[in-house]
């Protein structure tokens, strides 16, 4: 029986109702399979279970009972489906729990979705969020994602779902894009984003943006995605004036960007244009200066250039997404002619995924650290046993794949991603290739934190996060050992665990596909981050040898520079506003346009840069205060974790006090808005000497009378450029 495919076996078996003999045949057919069958067969078995149960519930339960004793994963799935069809949700959820860690890919998404569905039906919505999120992250099937979105909506009526960010996103398109909405909601949930999605009327994106009373305007979007397709440009096969054919559509879109940002206050995601896979002119279409293929590529380049000049506009590279998916399948001529559906239904998950990747970056959810196992990940073999000469690294097909993966990882660090080593090895063995192997691409200086020991990996991952001062939800774990991955998933569900394929040739694609390290801009701080973390670890060593904290600080030669916000710093400032959690008094997330609006409203601002004898930490502090009556109210105050514990907050506060005094403000109002992560600054204002001034709901207020003097610690050399009125933006 094992040689027959499950699909064929089920066909031969025929349809329910089943006799006792046929039922036993089914058990034999399904129970003889050790591992899970392909996703299509899983769905088939679900239908079969529904059909059996609707005809004869007693037979269904009898079959479920007979499948119980270790009848393989496929049998476990059928058992769960039978139980669910009979309304035994609790037992079905129990059966699925055993399968959750066993499957990969689309099958895993189906198991997780079924698990979530049964947990919700059994009255445990709180336990359903994790499997539901995994299903949303792992599936590329429109149907699974649609069902996940429905389940999410149902579950949210019963319990509060865990979200890291909220986002109101409007999808405006020249084509039918309605079916993307549920898929995008599911994918956003997988990324921790509570997406409220608005679909603009078909092909009215221009009217929607320009009309102050449109549905779009009433929706008040945070993000507007403009998805005009190549057909809507109306380009002929060959245009007589190519320059104008490029200039006109770009100017029109740029003016829509301006309206979206200035009037609607939204960030823009502009879809670029697919160069279609079919063209009567063939290769000439791209070769002729006026050819449609040529113009579409020129328009795309012009859009990137325009977006680089414009704040708050990001381009979604639809042409690349379509190419990656396969342009022949990206286009569905039947659905185009019958419903103006573009791209094809099966392509929507790819489009939604990349949109989610950009939204993560816009909302400051970019992952920060990639924690790497060594043996089987950076090289083949086991360094502790095979030795330097025995591991596979370069010098052959398998070894080349590991070298290529290392190149990819090193390139990732350019975006600000940090690499860490998290390996079960003797430290001396583990560092050996980094120091001596000629084919190693990664060197010790590329690794911000190096953990090679025999402790459980979850413990080391916690230590790495602590050393980097980042949350576990900013960590990504790469390990070739499924047991280690499963263990980390169970112990640290916040950590993103990459489903690494068995073949090292596929490693790059497996990590890249997730888009976890997507960033909107690369700042100079990003490029220096690894060095900065390494310096920090050295500082900690110094801290443990120096006497008192102030002695230690004095040895550091701390220099601080405070400046008003300027154009160059704004991207980094917005980045900090959107991702800083711990030292953040109010945790008010704001986009580029909103920060500019505060500046226009007369805000006093500080961008703090800090350095010491170990290096430069870069722009790591932000303060915004707004005039309120006769005083100043601190709207935003945050510092990056990298510079905490060095009394830099006193330098910032000192400058604020001085500004208030010299500009005639009678007092400063400070505010603490409690969140799950910022308890370390709950008493900051009190420590600085402010008086408690009551509460506004959960928020605690503090007051500083301007007449009072404030002493900045003498060991900090502070250059203060903020005393001149007005910011430089």
């Amino acid at each position: 029986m094992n040689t027959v495919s499950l699909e064929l076996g089920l066909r031969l078996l025929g349809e329910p109702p089943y006799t006792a003999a046929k039922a036993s045949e089914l058990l034999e057919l399904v129970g003889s399979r050790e591992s899970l069958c392909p996703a299509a067969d899983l769905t088939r078995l679900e239908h079969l279970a529904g059909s059996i149960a609707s005809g004869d519930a007693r037979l269904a339960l009898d079959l479920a009972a007979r499948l119980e004793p270790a009848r393989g994963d496929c049998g476990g799935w059928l058992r769960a489906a039978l139980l669910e069809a009979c309304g035994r949700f609790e037992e079905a959820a129990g059966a699925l729990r055993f399968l959750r860690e066993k499957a990969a890919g689309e099958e895993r998404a189906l198991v997780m979705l079924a698990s979530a569905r049964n947990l919700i039906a059994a009255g445990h919505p709180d336990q359903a969020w994790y499997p539901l999120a995994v299903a949303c992250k792992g599936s590329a099937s429109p149907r699974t994602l649609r069902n996940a979105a429905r389940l999410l909506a149902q579950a949210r009526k019963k319990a509060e779902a865990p979200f890291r960010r909220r986002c109101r996103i409007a999808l405006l398109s020249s084509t039918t894009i309605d079916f993307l909405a549920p898929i995008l909601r599911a994918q956003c949930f997988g990324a921790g984003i509570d997406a409220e999605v608005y679909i603009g009327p078909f092909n009215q994106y221009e009217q929607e943006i320009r009309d102050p009373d449109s549905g779009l305007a009433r929706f008040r979007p945070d993000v507007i995605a403009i998805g005009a397709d190549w057909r809507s440009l109306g380009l002929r096969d060959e245009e007589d004036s190519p320059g104008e054919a490029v200039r006109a559509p770009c100017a029109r879109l740029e003016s829509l960007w301006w309206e979206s940002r200035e009037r609607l206050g939204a960030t823009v995601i502009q879809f670029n244009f697919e160069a279609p896979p079919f063209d009567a002119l063939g290769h000439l279409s791209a070769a002729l200066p006026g050819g449609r293929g040529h113009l579409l590529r020129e328009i795309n380049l012009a859009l990137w250039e325009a977006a680089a000049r414009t704040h708050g506009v990001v381009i979604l590279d639809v042409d690349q997404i379509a190419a990656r998916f396969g342009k022949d399948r990206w286009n569905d001529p039947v659905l185009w002619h019958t419903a103006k559906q573009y791209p094809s239904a099966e392509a929507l998950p790819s489009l939604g995924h990349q949109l989610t990747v950009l939204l993560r970056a816009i909302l400051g959810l970019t992952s920060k650290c990639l924690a790497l196992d060594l043996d089987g990940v950076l090289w083949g073999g086991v360094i502790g046993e095979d030795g330097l000469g025995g591991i596979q690294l370069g010098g052959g097909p398998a070894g080349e794949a590991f070298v290529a993966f290392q190149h990819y990882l090193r390139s990732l660090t350019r975006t600000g991603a940090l690499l860490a080593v998290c390996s079960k090895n003797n430290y001396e063995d583990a560092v050996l290739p980094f120091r001596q192997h000629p084919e190693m691409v990664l060197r010790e200086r590329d690794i911000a934190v190096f953990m090679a020991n025999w402790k459980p990996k979850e413990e080391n991952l916690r230590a790495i996060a602590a050393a980097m001062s980042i949350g576990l939800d900013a960590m990504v774990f790469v390990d070739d050992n499924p047991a280690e991955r499963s263990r980390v998933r169970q112990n640290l569900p916040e950590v993103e665990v990459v489903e690494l394929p068995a073949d090292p040739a596929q490693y790059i694609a497996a990590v890249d596909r997730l888009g976890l390290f997507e960033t909107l801009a690369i700042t100079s701080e990003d490029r220096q981050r690894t060095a900065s973390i390494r310096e920090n670890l050295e500082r900690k060593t110094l801290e443990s040898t120096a006497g008192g904290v102030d002695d230690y600080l004095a040895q550091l030669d701390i220099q601080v520079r405070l400046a008003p916000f300027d154009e160059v710093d704004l991207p980094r400032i917005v980045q900090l506003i959107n991702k800083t959690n711990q030292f953040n008094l109010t945790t008010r997330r704001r986009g580029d346009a909103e920060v500019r609006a505060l500046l226009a409203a007369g805000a006093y601002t500080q961008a703090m840069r800090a350095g010491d004898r170990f290096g430069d930490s870069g722009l790591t502090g932000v303060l915004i205060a707004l005039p309120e009556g006769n005083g100043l109210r601190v709207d935003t105050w945050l510092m990056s974790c990298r510079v905490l514990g060095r009394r830099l907050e006193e330098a910032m506060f000192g400058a604020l006090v001085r500004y208030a005094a010299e500009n005639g403000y009678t007092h400063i109002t400070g505010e603490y808005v409690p969140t799950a992560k910022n308890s370390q600054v709950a008493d900051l204002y009190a420590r600085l000497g402010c008086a408690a001034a009551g509460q506004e709901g959960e928020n605690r207020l503090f007051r500083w009378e301007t007449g009072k003097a404030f002493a900045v610690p003498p060991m900090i050399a502070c250059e203060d450029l903020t005393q001149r009125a007005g910011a430089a933006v």
Partner: protein
Amino acid sequence: MTLIDQRLQQIFREAFENDTLTLADSLSPEIMPEWDSLGHVKLIMGCEEEFGVKFTIEETVESNSVAQLKSVLASKGVGR
């Protein structure tokens, strides 16, 4: 209920977000207000995905009741 009806019923339930919908051959856009043009595309997409088939333009247009949908599917070898 035959397996094909079971599968088709599930497609209808998902397309119209109605977990108690019961499939009948007589269901059509005339008696189901939610079976509008978008709903129709959802059904066709659901069938293509579930049964691994591709509808032509003509088949898409003429599948205007459960009975007709089943006959188009049968012509593609589904359910045999």
